[in-house]
């Protein structure tokens, strides 16, 4: 490979003394081609990241990929076009552009995750990021070709640069699905690829030294800064998504946040999404309607009066969706300890669609407090209470299933009021299930245990409770105005919920007391068998 003759203007511009030869001989030229290869790989990975992320969080991968690729290619064109306006040292601009790509591209996945979690305008963020990266990447090759054009003849230049560019694309398209995403996850991949770009920039300050202004300290300083940021990102990537979590959940994580109370994770598969609290599935969008119809409608069918409804837990708003189907509901009060949960329910577009924008209903009042503490001071009565707490896997949650809790609840239950409680699986955790029933009875309530089949959970258990005998189940009828909207329950299905098969028959258990939380111990031992 011929080392090309020095170029006098560049030499002078670079501040070299006259008469001294300027040579790009600080490294073999093929290293520059490696540069091209890396740049090309990185550029394609950013495109794939944006496409993948968009299809994760929005679904419909054909549309998402098509749009992302289109915008990206178009932005490449903008970049190429803009390169024509760049005068002065292409080498310096190249290093600057590399640093910019490193920063914007490297942070693209975490920024988009955050945008998805916190902003309504995810599409705007997505296409802004894609366009920006595309434009910057579009600047890279023309600049590099301008740098190299002095050293190669045009025919060699075009053939070699484009060849390495396409090799890079192949490398990226193989690495992305086979190594990067499974091993690093989207966020870390983004940071790692950004880091590669930043290293190219740093290396460039050395490789292109003869073509750069004398003082490159500033450039190198910025390069180190960007590298530092990205390395920190790699280390802290778990703040956005936890790879172990993705492996645990088996699907890409599209939202993750650790609130003061719990770890909230939303994952996404091809057509569905799922909410996990502390690693426990709360709903699967494909079959949550079975769970929430079973949680809400039996109580509404058994209740005489249903004007004032209290929901404890249920910050995802899905129980509210079922409740607001009833025109006779005048007020609904939702008590969920975690503001992060109701923010998710009211802000995450996926969830807002699923809960039919329940948080926008004027009948709703939201309270963020521990339900046990809140019940101590409540001074009004509710006709219906829907309890949708997480399973009693800890003492802090287990206390919400104690006789003490239910006695407090009784104080705000109207004389004819009805309570519905989700109470884990009567098949997988029968002692836990019957323990909740027993505890309600111990608190002085009549109970009607029932179950529904929710494929993503398995056989799931609930119990209705009331101060007085509500009569036989066969007298309970769904409200006709609501029945037509349901996907799971009809009147005969409603009766069927209360017919428990033999393998779910009642077990003799202790009630769950404030001073002896037997339920947490039952739950732990029973679910240990299935994990």
């Amino acid at each position: 490979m011929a080392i090309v003759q020095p170029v006098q203007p560049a030499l002078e511009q670079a501040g070299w003394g006259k008469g001294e030869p300027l040579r790009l001989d600080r490294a073999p030229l093929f290293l520059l081609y490696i540069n091209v290869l890396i740049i090309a790989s990185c550029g394609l990975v950013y495109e794939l990241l944006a496409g993948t992320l968009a299809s994760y969080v929005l679904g419909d991968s054909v549309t998402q990929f098509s749009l992302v690729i289109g915008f990206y290619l178009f932005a490449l064109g903008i970049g190429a076009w803009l390169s024509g306006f760049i005068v002065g040292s292409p080498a310096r601009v190249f290093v600057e552009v590399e640093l910019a790509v490193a920063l914007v591209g490297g942070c693209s996945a975490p920024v988009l995750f955050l945008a998805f979690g916190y902003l309504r305008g995810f599409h705007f963020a997505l296409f802004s990021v894609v366009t920006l990266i595309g434009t910057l990447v579009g600047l890279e090759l023309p600049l590099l070709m301008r740098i190299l054009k002095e050293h190669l003849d045009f025919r060699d230049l075009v053939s070699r640069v484009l060849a390495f560019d396409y090799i890079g694309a192949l490398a990226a398209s193989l690495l992305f699905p086979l190594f990067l995403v499974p091993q690093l996850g989207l966020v870390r991949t983004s940071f790692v690829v950004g880091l590669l770009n930043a290293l190219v920039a740093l290396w460039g300050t050395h490789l292109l030294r003869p073509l750069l202004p004398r003082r490159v300290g500033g450039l190198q300083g910025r390069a180190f800064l960007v590298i530092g940021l990205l390395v920190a990102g790699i280390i802290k990537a778990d703040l956005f998504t936890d790879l172990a979590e993705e492996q645990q959940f088996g699907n890409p994580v599209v939202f993750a946040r650790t609130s003061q109370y719990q770890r909230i994770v939303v994952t996404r598969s091809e057509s569905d999404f799922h909410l996990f609290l502390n690693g426990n599935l709360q709903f699967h969008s494909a079959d949550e309607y079975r769970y929430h119809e079973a949680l809400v409608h039996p109580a509404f069918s058994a209740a005489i009066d249903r004007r004032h409804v209290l929901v404890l837990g249920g910050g995802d708003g899905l129980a509210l969706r079922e409740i607001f189907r009833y025109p006779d509901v005048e007020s609904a009060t939702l008590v969920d300890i975690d503001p992060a949960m109701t923010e998710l329910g009211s802000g995450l577009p996926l969830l807002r669609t699923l809960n039919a924008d329940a948080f926008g209903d004027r009948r709703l009042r939201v309270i963020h407090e521990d339900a046990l503490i809140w019940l101590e001071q409540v001074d009004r009565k509710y006709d219906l209470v829907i309890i949708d707490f997480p399973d009693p896997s800890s003492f802090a949650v287990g206390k919400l299933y104690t006789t003490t809790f239910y006695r407090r609840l009784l104080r705000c239950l109207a004389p004819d009021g009805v309570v519905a409680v989700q109470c884990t699986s009567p098949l997988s955790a029968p002692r836990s299930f019957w323990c909740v029933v027993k505890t309600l009875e111990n608190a002085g309530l009549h109970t009607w245990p029932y179950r529904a089949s929710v494929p993503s959970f398995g056989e799931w258990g609930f119990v209705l409770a009331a101060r007085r005998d509500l009569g036989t189940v066969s007298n309970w009828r769904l409200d006709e105005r609501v029945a037509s909207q349901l996907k799971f329950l009809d009147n005969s299905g409603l009766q069927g919920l209360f017919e428990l098969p033999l393998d779910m028959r009642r077990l003799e258990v202790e009630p769950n007391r404030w001073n002896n939380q037997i339920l947490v111990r039952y739950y732990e031992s029973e679910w240990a068998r299935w994990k």
Partner: protein
Amino acid sequence: MLKASAIAGTAACSGCGSRVGPFSFPGAIIGAARDRGHELRGDRRLDEPVAEWHTVDVVIVGGGVAGLASAWTLDKLGLRDFVLLELEEALGGTSRGGRSDVSAYPWGAHYLPTPMPENIELLRLLHEAGAIEQFDADGSAVYAEEQLCRDPEERLFYDGQWHEDLLPSDVSDRERGEWDRFRIEVDAWVAWRDPQGRRAFVLPSDRGSDDPKVAALDAISMTEWMEQRRFHSPFVRWEIEYACRDDYGTTLDQTSAWAGLFYFASRIRNPGESPQPLLTWPEGNGRLVRFFADQLGNRARTGMLVTAMRPAKSATSGGNGGGVDEAASLKPGSMPEGPFDGVEVVARSAADGILRGWRARHAIFAGPQFIARRIIENYDRERGDAVRQFTYAPWLVANLHLRDRPVEHSFPVAWDNVIRDGQGLGYVVATHQSGRDHGPTVLTYYRPLCEFTPSEGREWLESCDWNACVDVVLRDLEIAHSDLRPLIVRLDVMHWGHAMIRPVPGFRFGTARARCQERFGNIQFAHTDLSGIALFEEAFAHGCRAAREIADQQRERVP
């Protein structure tokens, strides 16, 4: 002992002004009334004339649980004309609690085992105070569930982790076997009855047996008893010593075998059963103090430094009546006209500095004996020898106000959290019982100073400034919570110089204790030190007894 040298090192350092802190949070040493109490040491009780005299049936001196129980019982017996004088600004003695925006919290005693069915008076109190909701047909008490200690009750920190319960799982089978053997010994005492059918260990303790077999246990220390019974396991030793430190502020060497066994056997109703469940409240036994205080109204006067009590001649006095003949020592002008049959009590109010006097038919001295000696005329001369056998354990208690909870990795937070390698007893969490599991809370840290002799312990406390105390507290708690310091918004320290009577060998069945229980003229005594064990049940029983005896005397008086 290692422990002793470690804390002695701390004491030496704080004494010589070594630098600890500064800490980024505020706090104070509570216990200002200590200085007022020390005024009694100077012999100036009768230097000034009494400004005003009041007449009542009964004066109660001391507003701890014994005094409050006396007042409650006097009310029950229809003797409503009494006044209760308390040195501190708050009632409750070592059962008092404090309150912040976040939670109420204890400053001392913080739980009460549910009483056995025989302890009728205490059951009645708990019923009135709302801890017992009703009595079933068979007479058994139904407790308000949320006043029973919330599960999980206890956890123990060792090997870098918290573990459920106080019985660690990392002990050998041999050691566990030894623990089982100890439980069998305890069960044998639970089942034991004397010829009169009395249990050996029962609350209140005066209803227990005085059989020689039981008395013999008081002659030896718990250490000796364990030696005799071949209990050598460090684990068993730790468990039993923890119980002694917790309830008495004493080590195994300092505790009589009677008291050591009392801790375990008095809480178990029948052999093989678990100990009685515990009642607790965010403010600890301060909840019951508040109940008592609500009944008292303005008959309770706080901030009253009682400077003198003088028993006068009493025709009906059947007691030993010591000092009756030397009764004429009040200053001229303060003597009432005519014959006076009762007790005079003089106290200075912290609010206005005025010296006030009360003339009463009867008085109940519901304070510790070492104070009785200083304020009851001629008491020291009559009973000084006996009183000097009463020794009291000093304690350090700290309340840590936290902005948030320390991070938990292993077994979750319990009500009582014990650090095995710590020098204190660990901490209780004020918000545990109220069910607040997130955000700000208050931790109460307990540290009996049993590594010292009592007077050395008190000297150590006095030498400790706030920084030194905080250092002691944090050094212990940071074993388990390395992230604690930045969470603290305030840390207050209580110096209890005389927190608990010490049940040292020989004290319980010795003559001194029996002698000091007898009334002195018309002064009755009510305090846990008369039992030798500082438990709520004992204070309560003494208070009730003293009030009943006064009522009996009154009845005798009426023809």
